[in-house]
């Protein structure tokens, strides 16, 4: 996408935003406006939970705003409305206390169920220790003797600075790409042990529905089981200083055998590196 296209795009968007949000989003239905369903059982459960609560909110909104708008239209002085003078009704108060409580219960039960599953990180197939640094991630495969840093990929890095002259629309996955992604096998339970070296960071990949703080001096646990292969992107989600916006996370989910192959190249690589250092 060249610079002129960008400008045209900007103009179009300016026009659209002035017309109002409804129009704008209808015009470009491809804009991501919702949470991804993700690629784990729990991410999909979380998504369903999110949609369930969302629709309840919409329903509540429709009823509440519906009544209000009706009243605004009908009970106006200019329509000759005379003000009634009632000022309380215990029945009404009881009803509109109890109904919300019921709605809340309907939401609370599945939420609690999902919560319990999210916390159950027992019996993993693979454990990775994730350490946050200002401003990069460090991954250590607990039992495989592999570890490496993961930092913002070169093309983004070059374009990110003020006056870099680059057009960020030309950079693939601008700010969402790293030099070395976290590689995990599909279908296996991966446990992450998160900690940080300096300040608090937070490891977030929306497609995995995981966000967990990496806290210096403490270790947090979380887990996921990816059901699809592919590349999934996320970012540090806790303000961690000036380059907080520049420490993305990339997870590559591969088939089991590809993972084994990757592991082999990695341990060779680390061995060679270790030799070179000695």
């Amino acid at each position, binding site marked *: 996408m060249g610079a002129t296209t960008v400008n045209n795009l900007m103009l179009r968007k300016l026009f659209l935003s002035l017309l109002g949000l409804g129009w704008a989003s209808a015009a470009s239905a491809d804009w991501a406006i919702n949470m991804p369903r993700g690629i784990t059982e729990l991410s999909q459960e979380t998504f369903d939970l999110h949609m369930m609560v969302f629709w309840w909110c919409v329903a509540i909104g429709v009823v509440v705003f519906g009544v209000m708008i009706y009243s605004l239209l009908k*009970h106006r002085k200019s329509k000759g409305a005379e*003000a009634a003078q009632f000022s309380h009704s215990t029945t009404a108060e009881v009803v509109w206390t109890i109904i919300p409580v019921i709605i809340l219960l309907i939401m609370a039960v599945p939420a609690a169920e999902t919560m319990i599953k999210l916390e159950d990180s027992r019996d993993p197939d693979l454990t990775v220790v994730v350490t946050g640094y200002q401003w990069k991630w460090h991954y250590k495969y607990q039992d495989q003797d592999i570890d490496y840093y993961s930092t913002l990929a070169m093309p983004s890095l070059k374009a990110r600075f003020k006056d870099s002259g680059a057009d960020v629309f030309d950079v693939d996955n*601008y700010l969402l790409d790293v030099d070395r992604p976290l590689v995990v096998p599909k279908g296996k339970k991966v446990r992450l042990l998160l900690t940080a070296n300096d300040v608090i960071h937070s490891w977030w990949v929306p497609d995995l529905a995981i966000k967990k703080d990496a806290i210096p001096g403490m270790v947090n646990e979380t887990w996921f089981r990816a059901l699809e292969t592919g590349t999934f992107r996320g970012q540090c989600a806790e303000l961690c200083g000036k380059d907080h916006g520049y420490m993305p996370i990339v997870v590559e989910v591969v088939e089991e055998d590809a993972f084994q192959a990757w592991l082999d190249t990695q341990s060779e690589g680390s061995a060679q590196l270790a030799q070179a250092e000695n």
Partner: protein
Amino acid sequence: MTTAVADAHDAHDEHHGPEKGIRRWLFTTNHKDIGTMYLVFSLIMFFVGGAMALVIRSELMQPGLQFVHPEFFNQMTTMHALIMVFGAVMPAFVGLANWMIPMMIGAPDMALPRMNNWSFWILPVAFGLLLATLFMPGGAPASGWTMYPPLVLQTGDAFPFLIFSVHLMGLSSIMGAINIIVTILNMRAPDMWLLKMPMFVWTWLITAYLLIAVMPVLAGAVTMLLTDQFFGTSFFLAAGGGDPVMFQHIFWFFGHPEVYIMILPAFGIVSEIIPTFSRKPLFGHDSMVYAASSIAFLSFIVWAHHMFTVGMPLSGQMFFMFATMLIAVPTGVKVFNWIATMWKGAMTFETPMLFSLGFVFLFTIGGLSGLMLAIAPADIQYHDSYFVVAHFHYVLVPGSIFSLMAAAYYWLPKWTGYMYNETAGKWHFWTSTFFVNLTFFPMHFLGLAGMPRRIPDYSTQFADFNFMASVGAIGFGLSQLIFVYVLLTAKKGEEASDRVWEAPKGLEWTVPSPAPYHTFDTPPVKRVHEEAFE
């Protein structure tokens, strides 16, 4: 008897009007003068904080870094929030309390007038110190308004200034709150029973209690930051047996009640305005009082809903999720009562009513997104994303700020004695409403699509909605200039009658417009009171 007493005694006998010149403002003990100073101060701070928001929005208008460096961006985010919360919204509510509470309950002034002056004059000192940090080595604080350690300990020379300015803001709020509580409990006209008090007075009573309960806790939290930084304590250092997360618990023990401090007086304001323009008494006055009290009570036991990702034990997450959800119930009672007040009324739509209606609509949207955030597993996705930013701006901007605008238009004729420019007021409302939605609605989508908050630059897929939000922010900012215009021309309109509106209830409408310098030197007698109140 010393001369001081003689002077004071004189003053008491004759009832001077205001003093001349600057002395009036520096030395005043008059609740109306102090209220005015609070309101003007908060308006200035709203513009300063808003200007910072515009820096944020300009940088975020397009992907790529155009205007500022990341470290400065973070300073803007931090200062924007601190200034809006502690400098704009809270003082504005205190200013309204100062102006209106004595007039609403028939008191001659605030209970502790000299302290009232001091609680105001601490604010310029606090914000002077805070704003000065922008020019210091290392810049202003950049750790977010939540000041989480260890990051906040990386602040440069600004660090102690940040801490002490927070102390001063706390001191000012506590003194202001004590004054308000004592005024309400001790200075009411003889037959103003507690449950007869106007809603604004009630919500402020509860708010003041919250303030006294939590501001000292914030003071304690930042004191621990200070000693961790300079005196080697280990409160927030795991190696020493502390825990960085402990700060978050203490902060949010303050922080969550704080957000209700910013909304309860707003509830009070719209509960005054909606009945007036519906020409109907407030529906369910007493249940409104109980609802506000429940909200206040619950606000103390929900704090860790800001911390669903810190790795709390499961039982903790469950507790805080359920407790948080419960708040929807009393808040719902409020919303339903407002609607029941409008129901079968005879509504007209002057500017204060418009802003109040906008409040009810848009606050409810913000409240519902709050409810979504309360669902812990889903919050793991929402947390620290623009969805949260959308939520809290919906409750704060078309929430708190709209209620303040409504209050300003509602009582302006009582303050100045003239009707404001209604056309301009309506323009102000409609442009604000349009642009506030354009600014903050797309942020929901950004958050859901995965954009974290507190970042100066973002991936290109977020470009469109950010662009909209930035256009909206500029539009919203410009709309506020209409308000300035209304204020500047406030004395050019027709003279306002004492009652101003067609059927307002409350003692403040029994005194002349503009309200004289001293009102209710003797408490209003029963007759007047009843006429005003029934």
